[in-house]
């Protein structure tokens, strides 16, 4: 990233502006399309500004984990495909992809948005296994929020393929919450939501806050080397909870 570009973004910030004209707490356009992959049990295509990804949910039967015999299993995988960015060229930057996948996964798991006990078919023997695969096609910054939205959208439209496994009629995946991830960065003392790729790279550090319908927090992740102050963190937490409500409302209208 050129020094010129950095300076430009700093100078804009001082004037209260962002490179794409957004307010500091404004998200880029969010486009979500569901059922885009007919062969998946659930799917969604998300465009968050320039960021573009597809989430597919595959569901099949399997054996529960020994320590949770009466609960279904969810597994989240995220691929930073080399077609999505020149930075992903020499093999995917495994570390980042793993972190993103695990935060998306915890967002779904810890918010208890899926009722895992309803994914049990025969306790200790057979449960539904829900595989959430995030395929990142274009990296325009803030993959985290886009991936979280895509995962929830795909799950909310997914079916348990019971008929395919001779287990009765297909039913929706039992969802009970809509966790929304909101990511912020800090540049020169200013907090900006939904960072673009340039903003993300200048900031160095992102803070993601995942919150639920009741306004509670179900997940957080600081990612990047710059430290944050308590004040900055608390400000982001409040802003994120508010913004999540707004995004969730729009999202549920779809």
């Amino acid at each position, binding site marked *: 990233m050129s020094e010129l570009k950095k300076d430009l973004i700093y100078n804009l910030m001082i004037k209260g502006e962002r490179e794409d004209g957004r307010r500091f707490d404004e998200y880029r356009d969010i486009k979500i399309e569901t059922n885009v*992959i*007919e*062969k998946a049990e659930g799917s969604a295509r998300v465009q968050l500004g320039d960021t573009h990804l*597809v989430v597919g949910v595959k569901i099949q039967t399997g054996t529960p984990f020994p320590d949770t015999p009466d609960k279904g299993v969810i597994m989240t995988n995220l691929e930073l495909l*080399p*077609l*999505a960015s020149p930075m992903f060229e020499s093999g995917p930057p495994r570390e980042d992809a793993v972190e993103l996948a695990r935060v998306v996964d915890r967002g779904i798991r810890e918010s208890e948005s899926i009722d895992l006990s309803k994914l049990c078919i025969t306790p200790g023997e057979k449960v539904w296994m829900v595989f959430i695969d995030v395929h990142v096609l*274009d*990296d325009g910054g803030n993959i985290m929020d886009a991936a979280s939205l895509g995962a929830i959208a795909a799950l909310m439209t997914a079916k348990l393929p019971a008929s395919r496994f001779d287990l009765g009629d297909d039913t929706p995946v039992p969802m009970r919450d809509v966790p929304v991830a909101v990511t912020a960065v800090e540049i020169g003392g200013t907090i900006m939501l939904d960072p673009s790729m340039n903003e993300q790279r200048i900031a160095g550090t992102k803070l993601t806050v995942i919150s639920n319908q009741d306004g509670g927090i179900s997940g957080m992740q600081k990612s990047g080397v710059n430290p944050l102050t308590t004040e900055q963190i608390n400000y982001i937490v409040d802003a994120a909870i508010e913004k999540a409500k707004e995004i969730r409302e729009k999202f549920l209208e779809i």
Partner: protein
Amino acid sequence: MAKPEKLIENGIRLDGRRPDELRPIKIKVGVLNRADGSCYFEFGLNKVIAAVYGPREVHPRHMQKSNSAVVRYKYNMASFSVEDRKRPGPDRRSIEVSKVSREALEPVIFQEYFPRSAIDIFVEVLQADAGTRTAGINAASLALADAGIPMKSLVSACAVGKVDDTLVLDLNKDEDNYGQADMPVAMTPDGKITLLQMDGHLSGDEFKEGLEMAKKGCLEIAQLQRAALLEKYATRMDGESNE
């Protein structure tokens, strides 16, 4: 689907096509922002996206060629692209498909213009329904053009097969599963064959007839490819943003 009794009835295939008819095709060039060139290609239920980066530096260095570009092709199926979830990552099939697809495109690329550099082609299969390698080659050919890579021509690809003892163009999944032969072909507009694979059972004569049928299919696709490219350029010239 269990094996149907007949795959062709009264000369019409189960999905309503005539034997020499392609599945519906949808093409969109320039769909990605970060890639130098890209293309989304639907071929019946197949949905693939191709991206091209390059010419760019080669890592690791010892893979450089001193007098031409290295062309790399990575065909990858999304885990969710098929009925039963596929484990992420390359398998033996995708390694072979990547190799023959690369070889299908290399002849039309002016590789000697870009010594010591790489031209990287990535093909992602979002949904698979028989024909992903040909869909990928069609998409990649347009993504190369979209990236401004100098090419002698486009490359077009489709399969021909045999079902119920009849040669048919562009097999769908059921025809592939229950058919008697499958033969993917790629060619340049002037009829040079750049990909040819076959498995199943064909007599020598059937093969020759089939190859002609595939060539006609490729020419049809070539027209749609050119139209999609023109649409992209027209859009650009109209001053619209390329979405």
